[in-house]
């Protein structure tokens, strides 16, 4: 059996080394290279043409999201799988829209990661478990920016009542029960997507 050739890109050396060590313990994978940012990812994709490139989201220089299309252009055969510190379902859509196969939280189990790498290598695309509308994502990001319902209504040119409705919908769909919970979720999401 040929091993899947994997490249790991993360700005933290300890995280890179840990993920590499973890994957090395599985006979299905071979870690062929590592890089510390998006620019390094593009260069390695071009040079090594890996089957799967694991790409951290938050990195200085060129971050994961912005690097995806460039990596795909540099080596169309390489499938990109994002790895993130947070597990935000609505953020997966963003990654997929930009050409990644999916997103795995760093809090997932090693088995989740290995399954995701194998699916990514087959070209499969992950589906968001909780799809949010574009409008809901807008409201969420404004909540995270600390805007009040009134301000959000003005910015989006919708009624305050509609904003309240979106807010309630978001809490229901994301299974969040407190005001603080929604704000935290929104802030994490903005940070991840910015």
């Amino acid at each position, binding site marked *: 059996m040929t091993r899947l050739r994997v490249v790991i890109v993360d*700005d*933290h*050396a*300890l*995280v890179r*080394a*840990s*993920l*590499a*060590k*973890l994957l090395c*313990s599985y006979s299905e994978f071979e870690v062929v290279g590592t890089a510390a940012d998006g620019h390094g990812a593009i260069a390695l994709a071009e040079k090594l043409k890996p089957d799967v490139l694991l790409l951290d989201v*938050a990195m*200085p*220089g060129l971050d994961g999201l912005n690097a995806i299309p460039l990596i795909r252009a540099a080596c169309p055969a390489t499938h990109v799988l994002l*790895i993130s*510190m947070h597990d935000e379902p609505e953020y997966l859509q963003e990654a997929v829209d930009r050409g990644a196969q999916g997103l*795995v*939280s*760093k*809090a*997932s*189990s*090693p088995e989740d*990661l290995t399954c995701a790498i194998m699916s990514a290598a087959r070209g499969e695309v992950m589906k968001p478990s909780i799809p949010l509308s574009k409008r809901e994502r807008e409201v969420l990001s404004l909540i995270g920016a*600390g805007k009040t319902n009134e301000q959000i209504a003005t910015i989006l040119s919708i009624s305050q009542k509609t904003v309240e409705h979106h807010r309630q919908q978001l809490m229901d769909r994301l299974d*969040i*029960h*407190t*005001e*603080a*919970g*929604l*704000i*935290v*979720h929104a*802030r*994490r999401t903005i*940070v991840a997507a910015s």
Partner: protein
Amino acid sequence: MKPIRVVLADDHTLVRRGLSALLTADGSISVVGEAEDGRELAKKARALQPDVALVDISMPLLNGLDAMLKIRRVSPQTRVIILSMFSDDAYIAAAWEHGAAGYVLKDEAPEQLIEAIHTVVSGGMYFPVEHPPVVTRNLLTPREREVLQLIAEGKRNSEIASVMMRSLHTVRSHRARLMMKLRVHSAAELVQAAEKLGVVRFSPPEG
């Protein structure tokens, strides 16, 4: 020589499992326990009395710094190394003040982490700077910081009461006192204050 007994706490399972494999491969270190939040860590430290606790600074339920206070009570001889993505002076200072023996940045190499473990076990300190700046974080009591973190994680009062094993009444009065001490009036402001105080952290490290 007996291997150094280490307990490892990080909520990111992938990183934790990988780190554990890295450390174990070194031969001089034995990872005797793992935890994915600060509360589980305190329990493991009490049960295992490790030589070293390797503690991620931001973890759910109880962050690394506040978990360290508990470890010092339940396993005083355990040397704590904070693992962190943040090189901000304020975080390093806070770790120092809380009694950490080391502070290792996640962008250091595995060899440096292993060196840090050996250094603290032989009584030394391992910090990224020689003299951490002093920052006072004593505005809130440890209990109040615990409540603040759980609020900022979106927990209801009833959930906070059950995590902390306290009555609902106690949680409500902690919450009221937090609002008063921090001079804030809304959940949004509490969350912001929690982030400012380093009780929770949402943003990635500065580029």
